[in-house]
């Protein structure tokens, strides 16, 4: 690469301004053995030999009190299927290994078999909290590849934007509801879902479905907004 620093001066100011001081993440070579063990060993598959190679760990008398617990794929707080293997000391989490893949649907493989108008039905279920956003991404990518992304009618673009933002609202209401419930504010769940019903009623009026509408399609939207 060039010898002079090609990055502009505001980049250097950016780096200096966001320096975290003592909490800065050090490069791997500067880590002590215990920190390295915690970071790389979070893969939780290091054999004894590999762990011993990381050097002499100080003899920690509290070590025999750690528990490895499986927070399984079926759990009310994981919101969907996420499996966490946790090493706990009391209530402090020392290491955590997430194991994913419990909702692998083969959507990419299925999508290879579908027509472009059917692609929306597949893609819309990827992030099921805000389905219109997935459809929008798929539709825009298809239009760009087909070369028609200049020819979308203006009204369709505005309708897409409106539906995406409503979908974002529905998703964020759900996030606040479930987050509140996790933190202990259980009535937030009720408020969030109540407000979400209003958004879903709007979607039902426009697209016919409360969730997973195949509405935004390559080329525009499926139908115009209803008169009401």
């Amino acid at each position, binding site marked *: *690469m060039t010898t002079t620093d*090609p*990055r*502009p001066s505001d*980049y250097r100011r*950016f*780096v200096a301004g966001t320096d975290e001081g003592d909490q800065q993440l050090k490069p*791997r070579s500067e880590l002590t053995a215990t920190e390295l063990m915690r970071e*790389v060993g979070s*893969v939780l*598959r*290091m054999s004894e030999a590999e762990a011993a190679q990381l050097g002499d760990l100080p003899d920690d008398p509290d070590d025999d009190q750690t528990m490895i617990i499986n927070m399984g794929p079926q759990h009310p707080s994981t919101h969907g299927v996420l499996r966490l293997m946790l090493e706990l000391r009391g209530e402090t989490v020392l290491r955590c290994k997430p194991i*994913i*893949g419990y909702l*692998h649907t*083969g959507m*990419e*493989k*299925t999508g*290879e*078999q*579908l027509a472009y108008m059917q692609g929306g039905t597949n893609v819309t279920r990827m992030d099921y909290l805000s389905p219109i956003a997935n459809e929008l991404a798929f539709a825009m990518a298809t239009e760009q590849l087909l070369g028609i992304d200049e020819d979308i009618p203006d009204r369709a673009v505005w309708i897409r934007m409106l539906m995406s933002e409503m979908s974002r609202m529905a998703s964020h209401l759900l996030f606040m509801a479930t987050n509140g419930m996790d933190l202990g504010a259980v009535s937030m769940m009720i408020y969030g879902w109540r407000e979400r019903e209003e958004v879903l009623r709007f979607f039902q009026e426009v697209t016919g479905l409360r969730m997973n509408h195949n509405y935004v399609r390559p080329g525009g939207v499926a139908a115009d907004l209803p008169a009401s």
Partner: protein
Amino acid sequence: MSEPGVNAADNVVHTTPGEYLALVKSLVDDGFTMCVDLTGVDYLTHMARPLPADLVAERFEVVVNLLDLAARRRIRVRVQVPEAEPELPSLFDLYPGTEAMERETFDMFGIAFSGHPDLTRILMPEDWVGHPLRKDYEVGRIPVQFKAANA
């Protein structure tokens, strides 16, 4: 190397497995601090794709998208991976976030990454046989009685 605001699709660097790690390391030093995605492509059905003339087209490609957060630049690295020897060096030491992405590429395509701390299947059960996103792997449909379209 690239201007801010340019699409990753317009800024592609092709390479071979031998030069891959050195190239990515030089990009990291240049400021591309974030690996946005690492995925694989199986070109079994369309091997005749536009590539630079001096590059041998292989069956698999690994595509890495990198992002420079401070200067807002994007770049895409495409590596040709031969079917006979589907192996690449792992980017885990440069970008720890690629741990899951490389496991997914291994699971779905069978491309192994040497130097990866834990290369096991991530989406399919661990004793699954086969790599699902390869083009010669069947969708696995069961016959359905009333199905007019897409036989």
